[in-house]
C-alpha cells in the first residue's frame, strides 16, 4: 500500500475544508471496509484519508416526525440494534444484517456502501425502496438528491470534488406498510449479491389491496435500479399471486445484467423475477403486521 496522510476532523467544516484542498487528492473514510481494500490493491491512491467518524452530523441516528435521519458514517450494527428501525425500516435492517459478517458490520456504514456505488451494494435497493434522500454538503453549500439518482455507474456517483454525503433521510413509515430486502448469493453468507431486491409496500386498512409500492433491484445493471413501472403497476391493485408475478415480469424487463463468473445474464434475469416475488410477499406479510419467515441466505 502507498504511503498516505490520515486526518480525523471533528467538525463538518473542518472535514469539508480538508476535502476541497486543491493540491492533494483526498478520500473520506467511514468504516474503511471498501476503501482500505481498494487502496491495498492499488485501485485508489489518495494522498490523504479523512476519517469522518468523529463528526457528530455523520453519526446521527434518530427517528422524528420527519422520519429517519441516518448519519452517513453510522455502522450497520447500530442500525440493527434500534427497535424503531427494526420495526419501521425493516428492509434496511435486512440489508445491514447481511453486509459481510459481524466484524464488517461493526465498521461498515451505509454512507460508505452508497458512496462506493457498487451495482451490488446491499443497502442501496433498500434505500431506494424506502424512498431515501441523500443530504450532501460541499463547498457550495448543501443539496439533496433522491437516492435512486445517486449512483451513475459502477463506482461512480453524483458527488463532486469536495462534497461529502452527510445523511440519508427516509420518510416516516406509512400505516399498513412493510419492507424487505433479500439477495441471491451462491453461498449462504458473506458473498457478493448475484441479484438483490428491495421492496416496500403500503396496503389499505383491510390488508388486501396495495396502495403504493416501491421496488428496487441490485446487481443487474451498472447501477442499482428503481423499478418504476413494476412498482406502479402494483398501486391500487388487490394482492394476488398473478399481480405479484406481473410485477416480477415487469422488473425482469428493465434489468440489463452482465454475464460473469457469478452468473450468466439469463440466470440473473430469471432470479430477478423470483426474488421480486419473494421480496414482495415478505413485504406484504410485514405490512399486515404478521411475522415474516425469513432466514438470510434464501
Amino acid at each position, binding site marked *: 500500500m502507498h504511503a498516505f496522510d490520515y486526518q480525523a476532523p471533528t467538525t463538518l467544516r473542518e472535514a469539508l475544508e480538508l476535502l476541497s484542498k486543491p493540491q492533494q487528492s483526498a478520500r473520506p473514510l467511514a468504516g474503511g471496509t471498501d476503501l482500505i481494500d481498494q487502496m491495498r490493491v492499488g485501485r485508489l491512491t489518495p494522498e490523504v484519508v479523512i476519517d469522518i467518524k468523529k463528526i457528530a452530523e455523520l453519526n446521527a441516528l434518530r427517528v422524528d416526525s420527519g422520519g429517519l435521519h441516518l448519519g452517513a458514517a453510522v455502522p450497520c450494527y447500530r442500525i440493527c440494534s434500534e427497535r424503531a428501525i427494526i420495526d419501521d425500516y425493516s428492509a434496511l435492517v435486512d440489508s445491514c444484517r447481511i453486509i459481510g459478517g459481524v466484524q464488517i458490520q461493526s465498521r461498515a456504514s451505509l454512507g460508505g456502501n452508497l458512496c462506493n456505488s457498487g451495482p451490488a451494494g446491499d443497502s442501496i435497493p433498500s434505500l431506494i425502496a424506502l424512498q431515501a434522500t441523500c443530504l450532501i454538503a460541499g463547498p457550495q453549500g448543501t443539496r439533496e438528491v433522491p437516492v435512486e439518482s445517486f449512483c451513475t455507474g459502477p463506482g461512480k456517483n453524483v458527488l463532486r470534488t469536495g462534497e461529502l454525503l452527510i445523511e440519508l433521510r427516509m420518510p416516516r413509515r406509512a400505516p399498513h406498510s412493510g419492507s424487505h430486502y433479500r439477495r*441471491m448469493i451462491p*453461498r449462504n*453468507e*458473506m458473498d457478493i449479491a448475484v441479484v438483490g431486491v428491495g421492496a416496500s409496500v403500503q396496503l389499505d386498512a383491510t390488508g388486501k389491496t396495495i396502495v403504493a409500492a416501491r421496488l428496487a433491484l441490485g446487481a443487474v445493471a451498472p447501477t442499482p435500479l428503481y423499478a418504476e413501472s413494476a412498482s406502479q403497476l402494483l398501486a391500487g391493485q388487490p394482492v394476488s399471486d398473478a399481480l405479484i408475478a406481473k410485477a416480477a415480469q415487469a422488473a425482469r424487463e428493465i434489468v440489463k445484467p452482465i454475464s460473469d463468473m457469478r452468473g*450468466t445474464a439469463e440466470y440473473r434475469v430469471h432470479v430477478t423475477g*423470483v426474488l421480486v416475488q419473494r421480496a414482495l410477499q415478505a413485504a406484504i406479510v410485514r405490512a399486515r403486521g404478521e411475522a415474516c419467515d425469513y432466514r438470510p441466505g434464501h
Partner: protein
Amino acid sequence: MADIQYSWPDRDSSKVIGGRQIRLDGMAKSTGAAKYAYDINLKNMLVARALGSPHAHCTIKSIDSAQAEKVPGVVHVHVLDHAKPGREIRWQGELLVIVAAETEAAAMEGVSKLRVEYEPLEVFVDEFNLEAAKKAGRTSKDGGKVQLEKEPGDDEDEATFADKELERLFKQSAHVVEGFYGIDAITHCCLEPHGATVYWDNDQLIAYLSTQNVSGTDEGFANDLKIPADKIEVRCQYVGGGFGSKFAPDYWGTAAARIAKATGRPVKLMLSRDQEFKLGGNRPSAYLKVRLGADKDGVVTVWDSDHWSSPGADGPGVPQGVIPYVFAPKNYRRAVTKVTTNNGPARAWRAPNHPQGCAITQTAYDDMAARMGISSYDLFLKNLGTDDSPGVAGAKPSVYAAEMEIAARLIDWKAKWHPHGKGARRGDIVDGLGMSLHTWGGGGHESTCTVKIHPDGGVESFCGTQDIGSGTRTVCAMVLAETFGLGVDAIRINYGSSRFPVSGPSGGSTTVGGVSESHRRAGQEALAKICEMVAEKLGVPAAELIADDGRIKARGDAKKSVAWKEACAMLGMKPLEVTATFRPSRNKSPLSDTKVGGVQMAHVEVDTRTGLIRMRKFVAVQDMGLIINRRLAESQIYGAVIMGIAYSLFEQRISDPASGAFLNADMSKYNLCRLGDIGEIVVEMYEPESERSRGVIGLGEPPVIGPGAAISNAVCNALGFRVPVLPLTPQRVLEAIKNNAGRA
C-alpha cells in the same frame, strides 16, 4: 534381553490412547505464537516477490530488469532459467523473475518495473469440451482396461470380442443406465502459500520451508543446487495447509537459496495469493460417459465407460483404476483420455483421484437405483457382495454394511428417504438423501524415532516428521505417554528438522501409522531397558513390570514399585537413547494396518426456483483401526467433510476460454464454504474390537472422498434427475431443471 513384543494396550487398560487430548500446540496456534515458514523473519533478511506470466501460453522474447534494479531498496533481480528469452511458458502465473529487496513494498515495486516482451501463443483451457480439445490436438489416450468373465477364443480379436461380449451382457441386463457425470478442477488453496525463508551459514543451507516432507526435501535442494545433502537442513514446525501439494522445495524454494547465496543475506520468498492459486497445485477434472447394466436385483454386472480428465499442463489425470469407485463389477471396459490445457500442473490432492472417481461413478450407481425405483441404500447394499465373495474392491463388505446401518440410523434414512423426485414439496423447496462409500490404504510409512530418557526422568523424542495440522505432535506425545505411564505434558516431542531421524512425507494418510509405530517401538524398547534396571532393585522379573501412573510397578503387586524419576535416576549420569525404525512390509505389524472403508450420507434441500442447495445434515461413519486421539480423528473428519461440501457445491477453477486467465484466483472469488453453508455434520467412529485390534490406520484422506457423490445423489433424490457436473452451482441446478422440464 528377550525380544520385545510390540503391542498396544487393550481398550480397558489404555489410559491415554483413545482419549480426547486437546492439541498440544493449540494455544500456540491460536495465539499466533506458532511460527510458520511465512512468519520466520531473520535479521538482515531480504523479502522477495516474483513476476508471474500474465499469459497462459507464450514465449519470452526479452526481459529488461534495468528499471527494477533502480528501485530504492531492490537488492537483487533473479531471472529464472525457464524464463530466459526463447523459452515457452505454458500456464498463467508461472514465475519468471524474482526481485529481492529490503522490504516487501520495494520488492513489489521492483516487480512492477520489470519489462518483459511476450509472444502470445494459442491457448486451450476448455477441458470440459472434449471435441474442442480433440480439434486443438490436446488429447491423448491415457490407458484403460477391459475385464470380462468370458475369454475370447484363440483366433478372436480382443477388441472385437469385447465389443460383442459387452453388447451381449447389456442385452442380458434387466436394467441399463446411460449417463454423463463430471467434476471440475479445483485448487489446493493452502492458507499458507508455498514458499520458504532461507539462509546460508557458511556452506550450510538452512531452509524454513512450508512442507509436508521435512525428511525428504533436503535432497530436492541438494539436487537442484548441486551441493551435498548433508549441508542442508530443512526446518518446519507448522504448515498452513498442504493437502498433497507441498512435497518438494519447488523451483522458487531453490531460487530463494540462490538469491541468499548471491547476496549473502537471508531471503524470504512466499508465493502471493494469486500465485498460490495458479501454481500451488490443483486437482484434475474428470468427465465420464458410461453405460452400466444390472441384473433384476440391481447388482451391476457390466460397466462400459469412457472418461476424460485434465491435469492442466502436466501430470497424470484421473486413472482408470478408480472407475467405477469401490464397486467392482465382474465385467467392465474403462477407457481414459487425457486433455492437456494451459493451466498450472496438477498436484496430489487429498486422496488423489478417489474423490473424482467416487463422484463420477457412484452417481451412476445411484441413477441405477433411480431407474429401478428402489432406494440407493438397497442398491448399494446388494452391490457390496459378501466377505467371501466381495462385490467391492475396498474395505470388507461386512464393514461397509455395518457402517451403512449406523449412518442410516443417524440420518434417519428409513423415515426420510423417498423415491427419487417423489418427496413432499415445501413451497419451492424439495429435499433428498444420498450416500456414498469410500476406501483408502492409510498404512504407516517408514519412520525412525529416537527416544531419549534423561536421568532426571525427562523424556523426549526426535523424529524427522512434520505436523501438517493433523495433530502429529499430540499423537506422538500420547503414544509415549501411554508407553511410559506418564502424562502427555511430561513428554517433549521434537520434529520438523531434516537433521532428525528420517520419517516419511505426510501424504497418503501414512503419518499417524508411521509415527505411532516408530514412537511406540522406540518407547517399548526404552521401557524394557528401564525395567531391566528396576527388576534388579525390586527383585521382580523385568517382564513382570509395567509403567503406569508415573511409576514402574510389578504387575498385580502394587507394593512393589518405584517412581518413574527414581527409575530413571538409575541411569546414572548418562541419558538413555533408543532408536527404532518401522518399515512397512508384507508381514502385518501388530501396531498398524492398512485399508479403511467409510460410509457417508447427505441430506440436502434444493430451491427449485433459484437453484440453491442447502446442506441440512451430513453423516460420516468411518473406520480407522485403533484410534489414538478421538478428538483429533473427529476433527480430521469434520474438516474433510467441510472440504467435501466446498468442492461439491461451490469450488471450481474458472478459466477464461479466450485468454486462459484464471479468473477467480482470489479468496473472495474462489468459493470455499462459509460456516453457514455446512449444515449439521455428524461424525461417528466405527471402532469395534475387530477393527481396533488391527492397529493404527491413517484417516486424513478417506473422509474427503465421499461428499461429492453423496451430495450429488441427495440432490438427484430431491429433484428426480441428475445435475451432472460438480460443483452443483445454482446455475447448473437451474439448467438441469430446465433440461428436465416437466419432471421436477
